[in-house]
Each structure stands twice: as structure tokens, then as C-alpha cells.
């Protein structure tokens, strides 16, 4: 069982990048009754860019529930590509709705992790991928980085510390101001 979970966790991170490159601008599946998500079959057996050292302990990978929630957040995060399509009137002065949706999705994940603190370490894999993803709006990347730095390296999964060091300075500066 643990091996399966490792695969899901590692693939989720790669799938995230693939999804964003494909310009996924899908609406989040957030319902008042809770969160729903499915893990695409094609996300099988891919290696994480976050964990080049590989063969990491299985404990760091997200469990199925967390993984499902992370998938929802991934789909809700605003991409640079999707924002470009909106046009001037939608972005001047005020964030477009995609930013609010992304923020709410990250907020739901944060609440879940507050209720399930033991899963935080696994979630740091997602937060690190998010902070590194240049296809995402800087605001989302800054929030993801904040989710890591507010707790610190001792609670991160393996590989996350190295990833955090690679986050561009511009994103780190925004995050530090929050």
C-alpha cells in the first residue's frame, strides 16, 4: 500500500507541471458539501522533478485524500496563460476572479492541513512544486512559498529545502511581505 502511495505522490507533482503547461484553466470542483477530485490515469509512474535523489522514504507522499484535495487546488490555481486571455479590463486595478478562486482553494487545503497536521509534510511537496512553477501567477507561487516558510524546514519533506532555494527572488520577496 505504501508503495502505491509513493507513486501517486510523486506523480502528482509532475502531473501538476504537465497540467499547467497544457493551459489547464478548469474551474475548481469545490462544492459546499466538500471537495471532489479524481486523479487522472495518465499520471502514472512519472518521476518527480522535486526529488531528483529518488528512493525517498514513503512517508513523505500524500495519502489519497490529501492527494485528491491537492488535485483540486492545482486545477484552481491561476495560470499566467489563463490571465493573459482575460484582457485589460479584467485585470486592471483588481485581481480577476481566478485569483480569488485560487486563494480559496489554497485556503481550503490549509484548513484541511490544520485539521490533519500529520499530513502537512506530504503537502510540502505540492507547495514546493507550486512555488517553482513559472506557469502560475506569482501571487499563487508566493502563497505556496508562504505555506512552507511559516513552518520551516524541519517540517518539510525531503527535497523541499532544495526546491525552496530555487524559488526566484521576485517570488520570495512577495512572499516575505505577506
Amino acid at each position, binding site marked *: 500500500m505504501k508503495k502505491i502511495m509513493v507513486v501517486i505522490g510523486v506523480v502528482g507533482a509532475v502531473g501538476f507541471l504537465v497540467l499547467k503547461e497544457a493551459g489547464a484553466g478548469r*474551474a475548481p470542483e469545490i462544492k459546499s458539501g466538500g471537495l471532489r477530485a479524481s486523479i487522472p490515469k495518465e499520471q502514472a509512474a512519472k518521476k518527480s522533478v522535486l526529488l531528483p535523489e529518488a528512493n525517498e522514504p514513503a512517508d513523505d507522499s500524500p495519502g489519497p485524500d490529501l492527494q485528491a484535495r491537492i488535485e483540486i487546488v492545482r486545477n484552481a490555481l491561476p495560470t*499566467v496563460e489563463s*490571465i*493573459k*486571455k*482575460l*484582457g*485589460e*479590463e*479584467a*485585470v*486592471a*486595478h*483588481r*485581481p*480577476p*476572479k481566478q*485569483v*480569488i478562486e*485560487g*486563494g*480559496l482553494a*489554497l*485556503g*481550503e487545503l*490549509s*484548513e484541511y492541513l*490544520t485539521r490533519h497536521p500529520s499530513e502537512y509534510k506530504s503537502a510540502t511537496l505540492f507547495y514546493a512544486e507550486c512555488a517553482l512553477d513559472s506557469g502560475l*501567477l*506569482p*501571487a*499563487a507561487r*508566493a*502563497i505556496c512559498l*508562504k505555506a512552507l516558510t511559516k513552518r520551516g524546514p524541519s517540517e518539510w519533506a525531503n527535497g523541499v529545502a532544495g526546491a525552496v532555494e530555487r524559488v526566484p527572488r*521576485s517570488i520570495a520577496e*512577495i*512572499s516575505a*511581505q*505577506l
Partner: protein
Amino acid sequence: MNSRFSWGLGLLALGAALSSPALSMEVDPAVPRDQALSIQNDQDYLSGLRLSGSEVESETARLLGVPGALSPERLREWLNNRVDLVISENQPLEEAVFMAPGKAVYPESDVFPASGAPRSASAPASPSIPTAEPASSEVSTPIRVMSNVGAALYLIGKKNKALLAFQKSDGRVLPIVSPHHGLIQIGAGLFHEQLRVNAEAQDHPANSVDRIATFFHEARHSDGHGSTLGFLHAICPEGHAYAGYPACDESKNGPYTVGAQILKTLTAACADCSEKEKIALQMLEADSRSRVLAGAKDWSDDFEILTSYEAERSKEGASE
């Protein structure tokens, strides 16, 4: 300030406009009742804010130029000093704005902001309309959230060396003698369910925090003079997420920073906001901060006031 006015235009309550700022922002009667009530609710929320004297609040006070500790009163005062009137998107500016016949002299008359200036200086047409895109389909119609049309109208008047005035829905006239007397136009987007942090309740504290921050952002457009007049936005450079759009600031203390700092301050103080809502508000803050360009500098927040206005005597037959 050496103001010299002719009072040929009985309509123009110039004296009132040049006097001390209003004690509170006035909401035009044409603003839909539910929107007006929400704005009142937001004002009440701001008044009842419980601040803690934190370092964040001190940063906010410094940014706003507020003396001493930040307080709800200071925040309201700052806002009210820059917003005189809130009008509805249903009030067509083409009908409500007119050019007063006569000669207007402006300070720094040949100095204008480098970017974001009105596209046409020939007529008091509708200024740029900041909007949001609330629909879920790919093809959607942007709707208005809020814009400081007072600053834009002042700029148009200055370009034309003319005095513009806005006629309120009750017939009273507000001469646009300074961008500091902000004329804020709001639209349905400010309250739209899809643009709310809390979709269920329009007047939930999380939504109040967001709307108040938007007001502060727009109120900052009431500041500045000459090349910094209106603290206008800059075109975001290549490589920026909003590249090509006038959605960035070259000022470190401009509208995006002000909005972000208010979000940070009010989010921290929001006892009734959930963790989810607080992170969504933080995302809005992050988005605003991402729009402040590298190398941005503090701009002077001194503001302009019309130097003088002399009405056309031949038409009005009046003297000073």
C-alpha cells in the same frame, strides 16, 4: 494656494469644494440601495475595527502618512479625505459631466503623468473603466468594480485648461477642482458573488475587508501632482504576468501597495474570517504586491488643486 474664482456659474459650489474634506464619503442617491447599504456596512466595519498596535499596523501608518498609531478613525479620515462622492455605474458620465465655460488655470499646467494619461483630452468622456470578469464561461463581459473617475476627470480638465463638473443625481454640482476630492464610481462587480471571498454573504467581514481595500486602492489615485498626478498605473513590462496591461505601479507607495497593506492589516484583525478566507485575502494581497515593479520608488503624495477659475462673463453676466 492662490485661488481666485468668479462666481458667474451659480451652479458651481466651488467654495464648498475647496473647503475642508468631507467628514465622510457621500453616497449618491442613485447608487442601488443594497450597494449603498453594503458600503455603509463596510464603513461601520472599519469604524469598529479592533487593532492591536502591531508592527504591521505601524507599517501601514507610515505608508499612509498617518501620524501616531493606526486607528479606525485615522483610517476613515485618510479615506474620507480622498473620497468625496460614490456614484453608480448607472450614472452615465457623458450626461453627468459638463465643462464649465471659462478659463481654468492649473498648477504645473504643462506637467502630466508619463503613463496612463487619458486617451482623449478632447472631451470629458468616460475614463478607463477598471473591471473584473466574473462570468465562468470563456467568453464573458467584464463588469465594473470600481474606478476613481474624479482623478481622471481632473486630468481631462487640466489637459483642456477647463473646469469640469459633475452633476449629482439630486441636481447638486461637484466641481472637479482637485483629484483629492475623489469621485468613485462603483459597479456590480464590487459585490458580485463570483468576486467575493465569501460567496454566501455579501456583507461578511471577509468581503468587507476586500471592498475596503479596494476603496483604499482607488483613494490613492486621488493623490499626486504633476508627473505623479493620480498615482496612475504603469504598463506592466514584458515578462510580467500582466505584461502589456496598465496594471502595475512604478510607485512603491502607490495604489497597489496601499491596497495590499490595507488587506494585510485588516486580514490580521479579522476575527470572523476563517483560515480559508484569510488565505484568499492573502492571495489578493500577493497579487497586488506582484504588481509593484522592481525599482519602484516612493512618490510624493502632495496633491493638486485648481489654481484659479474665471467664468465666461459674456455668457453669465456676473462679476466676482
